[in-house]
């Protein structure tokens, strides 16, 4: 390109020279002296450079000009490193933050599964009440499969984490149970051996086949081919490994890569296979050629209606309404079965909005800086306009400067975002359970480019146009300065308004987090350790109970342990176990919910959790397997069924077993910190015939200090009680509860961070603007002081301007925040989106920062010497 340009220049010169030489020859031939002939030729020819310029203009030169402009801008920027650093840093923060959040949105929502034609996949599912996808049952899967005409092939899938015994050692593996057509539907080919097909998905195969993932093959078998044909056990089933999936295959659920893929039908229990309301499968299907998701959806409605009517028909009138309320739908599933999409989409979109505002703020700030820079280059611009530069060209030069800044900002921002997305994924990840791919792909790069160009135009256009408008008319100079101040002021007001919105958002999210931490839990989560144990083979019931009791005994006598107990369900950890209950002497209203939350617990559970016992007694050794069945209820249960009367001695029935209520405990949050405490009843683990918990969570209360210190001795204690017992993961209870509010914590942390960032940027903006104003008004200030204005007056003069801008910014920003905060409504807790206190707090924070930023230039202005000021040019 450079070569071509130089060549074109040379050709142009030689073309014109030829003409000139010929003219000279002509005059010489007519008898002039060579000297005179040359002179005459030059005269006739006119300005060579002018002709060249005209020719260059015609050839087109925008690229050449652009390169020149960028070089010129680079030279200019090198001369003011402070400006460069501030500008690039604020842009990098804006662009980086936007890119990171977008990478996450990309990873969670946009990235397609690496399978054949992912756009043709649909998820067919029942809906939760709030319209999000739920799951389907095995009979429903087969019903859909037989009745839907617009799909060519479909498969069911569910995740499970079984304990497998392989080569004599046992481990927990991440498994996907998949139906026969799963791999053929996705178009996945084996990398070794074979994959599962319809022949594997039968009720009682001789030895069920299993496929392992490439990652597991490498990790567990070091990629050795003798892994094929290996046998292993899950519970009482013997399975054989028959093949390995390709490295690119990561399953259908983003964020989770399975180790094993097992055939569905033989691995399900009889109840799971036959019960039409046992919903725990995901159904994915491939569209027939030419079919659309809408068509499938229409068919799903008809098919679902048939199914659910058949299910509801035999039920009593009252339950029928609840069953028939359920809906089903077909969703596009290019990104697979993706619960992350629904869990994280709202926080991610709100965050996207927040970082969008941060970028806007950075642009406004940069715009202000460029404006001040343009003002100090006014002389240069006037001269260039006077000697004939056209305005468009000058505007382009300003744009080149901001383009260069945006490019630098984009590169820095990309690096920043790579680091920042890593931090975000770690915050989101369930301690390593979530593997999100946030490496930049073309979506992300395109997004960053678009963002940078937008930033460049936003930041550079206004100052550029402003700087070249009317510069040639000295009479208008005064008006220009006024115009300049007005633009500068609007930029500062814009920054203050955007900051106000961000600070209000930060305050709302921080308040939410504080309220969630302060909400009454009904128990002490601090100082508690929890863990699970598993046995390679299931025990008979009586032996299991004896071993668990022995384990608890050993645990309670550990040094540093104040109390030990076990519970079937960990509360405030996202779990909910509900049962229908009948209470003696209480008749439900027709529309009333007949369920209560249940937990099966060991003795001393309430003491371990520090849940106060309000009435009656705790479970104790009297409550043996053979003894009378007893239950403890919570306050809410007591209030809702017995009003003011004591429930002790009354009876409740659940799953055909009748329990006598022997005590009342305080309300404990059950599913999450947000949900109100439900009606609860507890039954002792010795008397759990009607209720079969899958396993227990053990709880240890530390006498003092960090409960995690107790973890080191657990392994030994567990294996001493029974050598076939394995210790599972142990964690502090507080960490588990914290994990349930990870979204809220992210919003508070990031909201707070961006709010603070916004304050800093806005302060920089105010400081820059006021310092610049003061330096321009130094003469005027000098006159005022000479005429008797005191220092206080000067400070007041400057701060009055700051205050006016502040008021405008807070009012505009407050109104915007009020209009927007509703979007975060469901994410908040214990605070309304229009909470007056929050708005006042944000205004005060902004006001204090703004005045502090304005005070420095004001102080400087009040300390100038009037004589120096008057002489100032």
């Amino acid at each position, binding site marked *: 390109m450079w070569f071509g340009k130089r060549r074109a220049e040379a050709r142009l010169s030689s*073309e014109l020279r030829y003409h000139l030489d010929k003219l000279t020859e002509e005059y010489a031939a007519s008898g002039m002296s060579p000297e005179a002939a040359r002179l005459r030729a030059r005269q006739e020819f006119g300005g060579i450079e002018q002709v060249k310029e*005209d020719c260059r*203009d*015609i*050839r087109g030169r925008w690229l050449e000009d652009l390169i020149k402009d960028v070089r010129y801008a680079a030279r200019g920027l090198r001369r003011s490193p402070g400006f460069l650093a501030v500008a690039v840093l604020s842009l990098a923060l804006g662009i980086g933050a936007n890119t990171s959040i977008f990478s996450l949105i990309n990873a969670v929502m946009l990235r397609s599964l690496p399978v054949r034609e992912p756009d043709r996949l649909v998820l067919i599912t029942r809906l939760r009440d709030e319209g999000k996808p739920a799951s389907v049952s095995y009979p429903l899967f087969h019903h859909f499969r037989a009745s839907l005409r617009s799909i060519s092939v479909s498969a069911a899938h569910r995740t499970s984490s079984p304990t497998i015994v392989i080569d004599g050692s046992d481990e927990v593996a991440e498994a996907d149970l998949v139906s026969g057509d799963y791999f053929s539907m996705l178009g996945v080919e084996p990398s070794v051996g074979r994959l599962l097909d319809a022949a594997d998905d039968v009720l009682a195969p001789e030895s069920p086949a299993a496929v392992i993932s490439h990652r597991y093959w490498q990790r567990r078998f070091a990629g050795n081919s003798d892994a094929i044909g290996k046998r292993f056990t899950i519970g009482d089933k013997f399975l054989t490994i028959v093949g390995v999936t390709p490295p690119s295959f990561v399953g259908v659920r983003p964020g989770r890569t399975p180790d094993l893929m097992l055939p569905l039908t033989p691995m399900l229990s009889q109840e799971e296979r036959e019960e039409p309301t046992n919903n725990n499968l995901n159904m994915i299907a491939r569209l027939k050629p030419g079919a659309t998701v809408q068509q499938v959806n229409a068919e799903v409605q008809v098919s679902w209606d048939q199914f659910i009517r058949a299910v509801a028909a035999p039920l009593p009138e009252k339950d029928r309404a609840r069953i028939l309320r359920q809906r089903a739908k077909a969703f596009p599933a290019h990104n697979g079965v993706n619960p992350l999409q629904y869990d994280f989409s709202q926080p991610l979109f709100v965050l996207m909005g927040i970082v969008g505002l941060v970028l806007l703020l950075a642009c406004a700030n940069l715009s202000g800086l460029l404006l001040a820079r343009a003002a100090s280059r006014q002389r240069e611009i006037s001269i260039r306009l006077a000697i004939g530069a056209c305005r468009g060209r000058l505007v382009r030069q300003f744009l080149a400067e901001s383009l260069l800044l945006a490019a630098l900002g984009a590169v820095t921002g990309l690096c920043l975002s790579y680091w920042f997305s890593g931090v975000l994924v770690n915050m989101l990840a369930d301690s390593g359970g979530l593997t999100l791919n946030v490496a930049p792909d073309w979506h992300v790069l395109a997004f960053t480019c678009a963002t940078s160009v937008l930033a460049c135009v936003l930041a550079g256009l206004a100052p550029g146009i402003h700087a070249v408008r009317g510069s040639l008319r000295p009479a208008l100079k005064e008006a220009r300065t006024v115009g300049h101040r007005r633009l500068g002021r609007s930029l500062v007001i814009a920054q203050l308004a955007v900051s106000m919105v961000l600070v209000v958002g930060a305050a709302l999210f921080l308040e939410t987090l504080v309220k969630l931490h302060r909400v009454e839990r009904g128990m002490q989560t601090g100082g508690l350790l929890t863990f699970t144990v598993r046995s390679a083979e299931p025990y008979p019931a009586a032996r299991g109970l004896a071993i668990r009791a022995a384990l608890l005994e050993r645990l309670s006598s550990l040094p540093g342990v104040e109390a030990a107990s076990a519970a079937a369900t960990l509360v405030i950890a996202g779990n909910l176990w509900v049962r229908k209950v009948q209470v003696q002497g209480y008749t439900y209203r027709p529309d009333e919910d007949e369920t209560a939350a249940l937990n099966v617990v060991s003795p001393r559970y309430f003491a371990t959790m520090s849940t106060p016992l309000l009435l009656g007694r705790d479970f104790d050794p009297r409550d043996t397997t053979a003894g009378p069945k007893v239950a403890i209820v919570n306050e809410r249960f007591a209030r809702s069924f017995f009003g003011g009367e004591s429930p002790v001695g009354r009876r409740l029935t659940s799953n055909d077993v009748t329990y006598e209520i022997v005590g009342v405990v305080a309300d404990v949050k059950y599913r999450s910190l947000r949900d109100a405490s439900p009606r609860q009843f507890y039954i002792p683990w010795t008397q759990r015939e009607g209720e079969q918990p899958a396993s227990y969570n053990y709880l240890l209360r530390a006498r003092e200090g960090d409960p995690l210190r107790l973890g080191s001795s657990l392994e030994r204690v567990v294996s001493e009680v029974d050598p076939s017992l394995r210790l599972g993961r142990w964690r502090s209870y507080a960490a588990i509860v914290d994990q349930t509010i990870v979204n809220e914590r992210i919003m508070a942390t990031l909201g707070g961070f961006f709010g603070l960032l916004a304050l800093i940027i806005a302060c920089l903006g105010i400081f820059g603007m006021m310092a610049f104003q003061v330096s321009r008004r130094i003469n005027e200030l000098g006159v005022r002081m000479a005429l008797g204005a005191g220092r206080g007056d000067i400070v007041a003069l400057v701060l009055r301007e700051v205050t006016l801008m502040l008021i405008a910014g807070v009012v505009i920003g407050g109104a915007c925040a009020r209009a927007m905060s509703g979007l975060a409504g469901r994410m908040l807790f214990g605070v309304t989106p229009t909470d007056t206190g929050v708005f006042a707090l944000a205004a005060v924070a902004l006001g204090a920062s703004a005045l502090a930023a304005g005070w420095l230039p004001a102080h400087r202005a009040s300390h100038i010497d009037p004589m120096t000021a008057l002489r100032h040019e």
Partner: protein
Amino acid sequence: MDTPKSDLLQGTLDVLILKIVALEPLHGYGIAQRIRQISLDVLQVQQGSLYPALHRLEKRGWLRAEWGEAETGREAKFYSLTRVGRKQLEAETANWDRLSEAVTLILRAAE
């Protein structure tokens, strides 16, 4: 003994160049000379407008430029007419004829 000179009408330079070049490939100086000679010294082309016009016509694809040896043995840039240029020339010539007839009619009538 100078002949009175006339300024070129706006936009006519292009068609003159196309016509001259249609006769034979020629360099810039030659084109200027030829216009002067054929118009019997009435039309003088300013170099300041000639070269930009040549470059413009080349960019539009009506002229093709080639470097070749001029009569003196020096390298010079020769312009020749392209096929598109020839069509353009025909169109513009027809246009000119119509225009000049019309102008003549009016001027005569006014007398």
